[in-house]
Each structure stands twice: as structure tokens, then as C-alpha cells.
């Protein structure tokens, strides 16, 4: 199995450059591709979010800005150019940094948050071979890198020298670090069963046996704990207390304007995509087609659905569905209070996760020794 990066290095070999330079050059291609994915994802996701919100509230949403003279009017593709116009607007807005803020740290914060999201993508598999680095500690790397962002959030909140920012940042930090524990403990269950930290091995295990969401009652519960926790981790409603518009203006982003603010948005939507891809790879079979779980006599010719190109399609289908569910949550559940949020994490999820850990270990021990 050659990874996409090896293939790129071979492709660039005609230049006759030194091997180490070639590697660095080859890495730039997926890096730029991932940046493009982040930008396109944020652009489309913001548009879809506004349209989904409009649909759920029985209104039209953006419907004025067309694209290349292509105006949809009242239909779903109505203001398809809206987010592009917004992005250009943000790029030309003046950048206001308050006088009494810590200007250097305020500039540093968006970089850290963006790098946290950007580096996580290295280990995120879009398909079987479509991954920048197939780490042998893939899950571990993703957990580690996705928690870098919280440093940026604290920096942003503190350096702004604004009370809203500070409150928002402190709440966000407490929330994100708290919900990291259920996330770690639920992904741990999958590692226990699959016996590997490598995401490719985990999907291979699911191909050989069954998807983790239906593997045992405990991994079924774990999927839901994971999904609710990542909704909290990405600061989405109903867990958007750090950004609660009605109380904290914009949370830790209050003093940011122009493109720095856009970077926060970019990272937020990138994080949504990352956690959804991880959920689909770890629990929902990744690049395996849903036909496999039906476990009926599938004709051999249908197995093309598990192919390398369609693998990308399946991962994205599952991941984008989960992103849609997050948008759906936003207009379904009211916002939690801070104490309810902490109650849910520390007194419900963590005890459940510890019990789950115990039961899964027992389950694997019994099924591994007695029903071998």
C-alpha cells in the first residue's frame, strides 16, 4: 500500500532534485490541497448553515448575491455567492486592534488556532490512501493536535483586554478541556477493540468484523458520547456558551475584526469537518460502503462500491451528514447553562465513560478467551 505522498514523490522525480528537497516539495501539494479544502469547506458550510437555518425557521436566508450572473432567487441555491462576497468584504475591512490590547499576542492567537486545525488534517484520512501521513499513532496525534487550539483561545481572550473576551475565553477553555476527557475515553474503547492506534488498521478491523457503532452496546453508547462531546469541543450550539451572542457579544472573538476574525471562522468550520471525519472513520466504517453492514449476499460485482475513489465519497458522505446534524442541533436545542454543561461532562459523561471502559475490557476479555 503506497500512500498518496509516496506517489507524489515519484511523480516529482523527473525534476532530478535531491531526495530531501523532493519530499518537502511533495508535502506542499497536499498542504495546499488541505488549505483549499478548509477554505471551500468553510465557504460552503457557512452558506449551507444559513440556508438550513432559514429552512428550519421558515424563511429564505441569503438570496441576493448570485455567482457569475447565476441567481437562484427563492430557490435553495439563491444567494450562492453570499459567503464569497463576505470573504472579500472581510479581506478589505479595516483591522482594528484596541489601544490597550496586547498587540503581539493578539496577532499570534489566530495563527495558533489555525495551525492547530491545519496540523490535525495531516493524520485525518479522506480515503484509504488519501492521507498525508499515516501515523502509527493516528488517533493519538489527532487528539493531541486538536487540543492545541485552546491555547490560542486563551491567548485571544486574554490579549484582547476586554471583559467579554476574557469571560468567553475562560469558559471556552474550561469547556474544551473538560470535554476532551470523554473524547479521549471513547476513542480509547475503539483502540481497545481494534488493538491499534492507526486509523487505517481501525477501518480494516471494521471491514473484517463490523462497524464500531454496532460492535457492542458499549461502543454504541460511546459513539453518542463522542458526538455530543465534539459538539461541545467545537463550541457549537447547544454548547456555545463561550460565544453566547445574547450574553457575551462574541465571546473571545469580540475584539477581532477583518481577516483575523475570518481565520477563527475558518478554523471553527475546519474543526467541525475534522471531528466529523474522525467520527465517521472511527465509528461509522470510514471508507467502507454501508452495503457491508447489511451482511446480505452482496454480488461480487457490487464490491466496486468499496473502491479507492468511492472511499472518499463514503467518508465525506458520512462526515458531511454529521456536520449537517450539528447544524440541525443548533435550531433544535436551547443553549445549556454553564453549570449544566459542567454537570453533563463531569458527572454524566466521565462516569459513563469509565464504566464503558470497564465493560468493554471485560467484553473483549470474554469474547477473546471463551468464544474464540
Amino acid at each position, binding site marked *: 500500500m503506497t500512500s498518496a*505522498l*509516496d506517489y507524489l*514523490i515519484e511523480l516529482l522525480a523527473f525534476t532530478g532534485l535531491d531526495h530531501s528537497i523532493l*519530499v*518537502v516539495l511533495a*508535502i506542499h501539494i497536499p498542504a495546499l490541497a488541505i*488549505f483549499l479544502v478548509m477554505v471551500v469547506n468553510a465557504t460552503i458550510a457557512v452558506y449551507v448553515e444559513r440556508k438550513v437555518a432559514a429552512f428550519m425557521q421558515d424563511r429564505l436566508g441569503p438570496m441576493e448575491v448570485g455567482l457569475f450572473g447565476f441567481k437562484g432567487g427563492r430557490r435553495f441555491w439563491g444567494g450562492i455567492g453570499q459567503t464569497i462576497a463576505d470573504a472579500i468584504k472581510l*479581506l478589505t475591512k*479595516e*483591522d482594528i*486592534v*484596541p*489601544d490597550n*490590547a496586547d498587540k503581539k499576542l493578539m496577532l499570534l492567537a*489566530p*495563527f495558533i488556532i489555525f*495551525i492547530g486545525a*491545519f*496540523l490535525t488534517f*495531516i493524520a485525518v484520512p479522506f480515503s484509504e490512501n488519501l492521507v*498525508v*501521513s499515516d501515523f*502509527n499513532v493516528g488517533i*493519538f496525534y489527532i487528539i493531541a493536535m486538536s487540543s492545541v487550539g485552546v491555547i490560542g483561545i486563551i491567548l485571544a481572550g486574554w490579549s*484582547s*483586554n*476586554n*471583559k467579554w473576551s*476574557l469571560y468567553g475565553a*475562560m469558559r471556552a*477553555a*474550561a469547556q474544551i*478541556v473538560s470535554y*476532551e*476527557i470523554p473524547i*479521549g*475515553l471513547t476513542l*480509547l474503547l475503539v*483502540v*481497545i*477493540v481494534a*488493538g*491499534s492506534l492507526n486509523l487505517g488498521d481501525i477501518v480494516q478491523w471494521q471491514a473484517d468484523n463490523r462497524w464500531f457503532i454496532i460492535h457492542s452496546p458499549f461502543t454504541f453508547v460511546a459513539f453518542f458520547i463522542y458526538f455530543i462531546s465534539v459538539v461541545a469541543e467545537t463550541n457549537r450550539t447547544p454548547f456555545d456558551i463561550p460565544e453566547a451572542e445574547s450574553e457575551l*457579544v462574541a465571546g473571545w472573538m469580540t*475584539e477581532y475584526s*477583518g*481577516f483575523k476574525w475570518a481565520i477563527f471562522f475558518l478554523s471553527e468550520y475546519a474543526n467541525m469537518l475534522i471531528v466529523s471525519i474522525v467520527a465517521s472513520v472511527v465509528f461509522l466504517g470510514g471508507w467502507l460502503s454501508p452495503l457491508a453492514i447489511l451482511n446480505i449476499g452482496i454480488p461480487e460485482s457490487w464490491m466496486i462500491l468499496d473502491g479507492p475513489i468511492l472511499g472518499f465519497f463514503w467518508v465525506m458522505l458520512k462526515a458531511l451528514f454529521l456536520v449537517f446534524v450539528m447544524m440541525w442541533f443548533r435550531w433544535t436545542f436551547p443553549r445549556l447553562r454553564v*453549570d449544566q454543561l*459542567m*454537570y453533563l461532562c*463531569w*458527572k454524566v459523561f*466521565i462516569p459513563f465513560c*469509565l464504566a464503558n*471502559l*470497564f465493560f468493554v475490557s471485560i467484553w*473483549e*476479555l470474554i469474547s*477473546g*478467551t471463551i468464544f474464540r
Partner: protein
Amino acid sequence: MYNDYIPVVVFTALAIGLLAAPLVIQHLVSPRHNKRNDKLMSYECGEVPEGSAWVKFNVRFYIIALVFIIFDVEVVFLFPWAAVYQSFIAQGQGLLVLFEMLMFVIILTVGFAYVWVKGDLDWVKMQLKYAHGRYSKLGVDKK
């Protein structure tokens, strides 16, 4: 062929470049006039800001951070165990390895229970011994 972790370095360098470019563009094209006085004041809903925002903060957040570190380290230590658990089961030593893990987790769970009983996981931990007036019913310890 190449080290798995080279992309991490390259991505970091590239991310800085990719973010700096639009910020430079913004700096060049954005309007620059009248950037002074009120416009550069901290936003406090239109009021003149009351003092600095760099204040002492609620100790509750530090306790959450401390408990988090303990549990995060627990999770970090459990991952290597989880990766080799299946191979130990295959060798027939699953029960022994399971007990070793449980010893570790139970010790931490006792600590977790202690924190819980002490009320440090409640966000609003109010113990107003001499509360009076409209504060008298404010979550005074039930004991």
C-alpha cells in the same frame, strides 16, 4: 523513505505563510484613516471601559484545569495499554493485564469521587455561612 513527521514541520511553516499573506493584503487594501481615540477603545457595549480586563479570575477554572490534567494524563497512559490489550488476550494473559489497568483506574476514580463529594465539580459552589436577606436561600450547604 521519509520520516512521518516531516509534514508537521512543513505544514507549520506553510500555515504561517498562508495566514500572513491575506493579512498583508488586508493591511494594504483596507481603509486606514481615522484610526484613533474612540475607535481603538475596548468594546464594552458603547460605554467607556471600566478599568482593565486583566483581573484576578475565579479559582473554579483552575480547579477544573487541575482535575483535567489528572484525567488527561490517565487517558494518555491508557492508550498504550489499550493498543497491546488484544495481544495479551491472545496470549491468555488478558485477566492479569485487565487487573493492572483496573488498579490504575480505580485509584484515579477514588480521587474523582473525592473531588465530586467535596463539591469541586459543581460550578456554583456556594457556602454562605452567614447569609442573610435575599441571599439566605442561595444554595447554602444542605448539611
